């Protein structure tokens, strides 16, 4: 298996950002809605430390978060039917 140097460099960053305990993608998606709602206030109260760490090692979840932010910005606070 031959990785190019740029691929090794990306892997090095991922290794650097690896934590001993990490949440998986299911847990990330269970909590991303709460995280995105907390972002305007900075989301820095310690509830989301593991979620932010997951973002640093999971490009797909990072893409999903950006897509969610785009959607919510575009909808301007519109809500769906369901519990408030």
């Amino acid at each position: 298996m031959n990785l190019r140097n740029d691929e090794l460099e990306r892997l090095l960053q991922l290794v650097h950002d690896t934590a001993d305990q990490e949440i998986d993608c299911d847990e990330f998606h269970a909590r991303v809605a709460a995280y995105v709602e907390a972002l305007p206030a900075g989301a820095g109260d310690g509830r989301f430390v593991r979620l932010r760490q997951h973002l640093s090692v999971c490009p797909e979840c990072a893409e999903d978060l950006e897509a969610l932010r785009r959607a919510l910005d575009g909808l301007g606070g519109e809500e769906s039917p369901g519990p408030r």
Partner: protein
Amino acid sequence: MTESPTPQDSARDLGSDDLVRLGDYLRRVLVRALPGRFSSTDLDDVVQEALARVLAGRSSFRGESRFSTWAASVAIRSAQTELRRRRSREDRTRGLEALDFEPGPAIEDRTPEPVAILEGEDLLGDLREAIRSCLSDRQRFAIMAELRGIPTVTIAERLGTNQNALYKLVHDARKRLKAALVAAGHDEDSISAGIRRNER
């Protein structure tokens, strides 16, 4: 005394008009989240799938956010998974499959100990050697596939597993690599310095 409904109870009580409005809302979410990614016909199918997932998963809604936001996140994940599967199919059709080796049969998968004899001088060289000596065949395959942009849903299918198990496999691999680099004398600061040098 009547107890207040839980978020889960409320989510179950959606009437047919609510379902139509929820579907319309999810369509608006997906159009804004993933602009231009679906034809109008495809979008109908994707919205229906997203709506089904929201309804099927509503007992897991924890009430930590607005229901709207949670439903939007479920819909986006569903749509993104479909897009990633399509991308993999298209890549195979165009012969652009990036994977150039197979992981080998799981029954023969060996997991060497994480301590590798690394020289401790060349960070990337030591990382390359740690990949070779500290990871199982399945871990090397998964790491390489992710670095080459293969969607995790595809990698998991190739390995005959699910995405959560794949995440654990890759997490364990990253921990082994980190342990090997540290054992070779590359602590977090020196790894950070190495990343900054390579970025210049």
